[in-house]
């Protein structure tokens, strides 16, 4: 449940905060008949631009509408912003979900968490566009609520927040990804220093120029043991993530050529003809050429070019 909304008794003229919309003033509370039911509606007017929203009184708490924070709450917000505890999640999906929840709930502390988290993250790397917009929205809502709570101008409210976030005379620190690592958490897929695709480990077993050490018997016995108790061993051993290691080539065998990526080449047609036969001419593309007339015959007169249009009228017989 959003903070401050446990028991909300609204009166006309009260200042409230509508989640994701900002500070509103209750303009009216009246009963209206909708679809045969009489419902009590709370009409709120957003202070920023005068936009009006009507909400059934029964939905006020579930939406997250609450009264404007008190000056004591704002002091807590300053203390929170001053602390160096909150680090944003480096996993963008998790971060987006968390921030969206905070914005939807509409608490002032949630807004401060979004602002602080993204501000600290921007000290590591520039924010992407969507998060920059989210940061701006959260900052706008936070500033307007602080201004409403303290009864001061918005410019002063913003400066009072930023004096905490950007202390005068100090430059912002440069953060490293290690500062954002969560102790005991899952593997961080954004940690660029780590082994991203398991390339650093020995899992891929790329063929090396050096010959493998000569341990034929031990290897074979190990392989046999693995074959016998493979399943048991697999159950006992901790499961490894990622691609299973490839089987090592036998000693003496030529090292396998490195696997080529991409589409495999087309299989060549089997050679049926004898070795002495000429190789087949490469297939020509396009329309096949017309068959030439046999050379021995007298060359036929070339056909007259076809005339287009209506055929000429037959001439009358001259005998008449």
């Amino acid at each position, binding site marked *: 449940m959003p903070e401050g909304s446990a028991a909300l008794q609204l009166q006309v003229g009260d200042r409230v905060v509508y989640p994701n919309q900002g500070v509103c003033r209750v303009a009216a509370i009246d009963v209206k008949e909708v679809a045969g039911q009489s419902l009590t509606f709370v009409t709120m007017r957003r202070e920023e631009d005068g936009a009006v929203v009507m909400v059934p009184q029964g939905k006020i708490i579930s939406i997250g509408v609450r009264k404007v924070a008190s000056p004591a709450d704002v002091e807590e917000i300053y203390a929170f912003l001053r602390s160096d505890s909150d680090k944003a999640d480096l996993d963008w999906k998790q971060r987006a979900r968390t921030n969206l929840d905070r914005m939807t709930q509409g608490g002032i502390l949630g807004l401060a968490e979004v602002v602080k988290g993204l501000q600290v993250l921007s000290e590591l790397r520039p924010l992407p566009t969507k998060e920059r917009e989210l940061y701006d929205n959260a900052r706008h809502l936070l*500033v307007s609520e602080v201004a409403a709570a303290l009864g001061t101008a*918005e*410019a002063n409210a*913003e*400066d009072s*927040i930023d*004096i905490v976030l950007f202390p*005068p005379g100090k430059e*912002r620190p440069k953060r490293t990804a290690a500062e954002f690592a969560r102790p005991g958490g899952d593997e961080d897929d954004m940690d660029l220093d780590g082994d991203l695709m398991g390339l650093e480990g020995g899992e891929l077993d790329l063929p090396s120029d050096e010959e493998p050490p000569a341990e034929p018997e031990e290897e074979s016995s190990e392989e046999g043991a693995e074959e016998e108790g493979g399943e048991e061993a697999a159950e006992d051993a901790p499961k490894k993530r990622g691609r299973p290691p490839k089987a090592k080539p036998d000693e003496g065998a030529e090292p396998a050529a490195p696997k080529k990526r991409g589409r495999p080449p087309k299989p060549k047609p089997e050679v049926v003809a004898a070795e002495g036969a000429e190789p087949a001419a490469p297939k020509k593309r396009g329309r096949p050429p017309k068959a030439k007339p046999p050379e021995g015959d007298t060359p036929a007169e070339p056909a007259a070019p076809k005339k287009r249009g209506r055929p000429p009228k037959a001439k009358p017989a001259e005998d008449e």
Partner: protein
Amino acid sequence: MIRVVTLDPFDDKQLAKFNRTLYTAFGVGSEHSGSAEVPAGMSEPLDAEKLLDEVKGIRAYKDDKVLLLTSRKLKDRDLPSGKAPTSGFARYGKDRAVLTIAPFKDLETGYKAIARHALHQLGTLWELHHCLDPRCSMYPPWTPSFNQGDHIFCTFCREKSEQKIRLAKS
């Protein structure tokens, strides 16, 4: 339209250059619209908020943004979280801002820094919040690196200010 109103004497050529910079940054006309008097009884350092409320004799249209320019110092503001160094002040989304050129003697001496502060105050009038990018003029102005930067906006702030100006025109 941006109207620069001077509270103290300034060189005309420097003011013309200053207006050209504002025109380049926002894409709206900027001109020197005369001078005004500091209200009687106000002494240096000036109280920026009080000055904005009490200064008289400024003629402007509804969508105009007025920038009061002075060479006198402004008083630091006492805020709930601390003292804010004040080189200028603007009411968010309103039409008036004040800017001091102190500690510089004239516009030319600290031109880059003064232009950057001017962009910051006018950006506040066009509802821009403080920015995270140290190169942007909307970065908090009390940071040590602020005066060294160029008078430009980051992409986000520039697009937002253009959008606000378009909305104001329509």
